[in-house]
């Protein structure tokens, strides 16, 4: 995972340099200087975290050119096979913005629906058949 880390760190360092050059050339034009500086921050942030993750997970089959597909088999993480809650939350968000445009009362209804959707989504794998 070191390659992913260096890709993002390299991108970050590049933009930090670009930001410094831009600041000097424009005598600190705030919008561009800050945006470029924080794009550098974005790259360094992701890259550093991937670096820590690389140290934690160690060498993966993806890191070797002679790896076989079956070496990557096994549990990859916790994934929901299907869920209705994202749809409900999406609809309530759509309703919320619709309310801002056409009538504020709709936003209140949508906010209530959003709470139901969030609770449903967060606790989907903590209750009912999935209680553990």
């Amino acid at each position, binding site marked *: 995972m070191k390659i992913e880390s260096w890709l993002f760190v390299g991108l970050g360092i590049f933009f930090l340099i670009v930001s410094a050059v831009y600041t000097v050339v424009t005598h600190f034009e705030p*919008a561009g200087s800050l945006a470029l500086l924080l794009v550098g921050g974005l790259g360094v942030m992701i890259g550093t975290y991937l670096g820590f993750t690389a140290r934690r997970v160690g060498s993966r089959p993806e890191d070797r050119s002679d790896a076989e597909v079956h070496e990557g088999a096994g549990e990859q*993480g916790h994934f929901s096979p299907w869920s209705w809650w994202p749809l409900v939350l999406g609809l309530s968000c759509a309703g919320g913005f619709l309310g801002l445009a056409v009538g504020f009362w709709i936003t209140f209804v949508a906010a209530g629906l959003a709470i139901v959707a969030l609770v449903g989504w967060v606790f989907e794998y903590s209750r009912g058949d999935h209680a553990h």
Partner: protein
Amino acid sequence: MVSVGTVVWLSSELMFFAGLFAMYFTLRSTSGELWAAETSKLNFPYALVNTIVLVASSFTCQMGVFAAERLQPRRTGGLLRFTRWGMVEWYVLTFLMGSFFVAGQATEYTMLTSEHVTLDANAYGSSFYITTGFHGLHVIGGLIAFLFIIGRAFAAKRFGHFEATSAIVTSYYWHFVDVVWIGLFLVIYVLK
């Protein structure tokens, strides 16, 4: 995998705040006199206390993460023996400190409004309330997330990696919001 996704999302949040910082500095560079007049109304010691509470809440949050990594949801000793606390106790404390920050900021808004610093008064008012307000909304979002994480810990009969992972990524978000506030604090209250 959840944690890497969270960090990638947080980096996009960084760019969201980059836009707000850029707006603040652009307006500041074009109306220096207005900034000099309006920033003198800020109550620095008050904001500093609020900031210290928020920064301290990151440390209590991290203690909760250590407990979650031990897969220990609840305390094993008395309520005041914080060395024996589990994730729930640390996160409740973090929640209270975050609530203190939001309440403090709301009080600060009313104080500033009484001194005619309002959202629609001038460029300073707009940039002050939009930057700190969006940060405040993020803090409130974090508080809601803490409630969900605490709720998940209560719902689980066996506190496992599923619960711990969500607790850890919520702490990433909290630390991020905390760091953004340190940036905002330095820009708004120190640099002026």
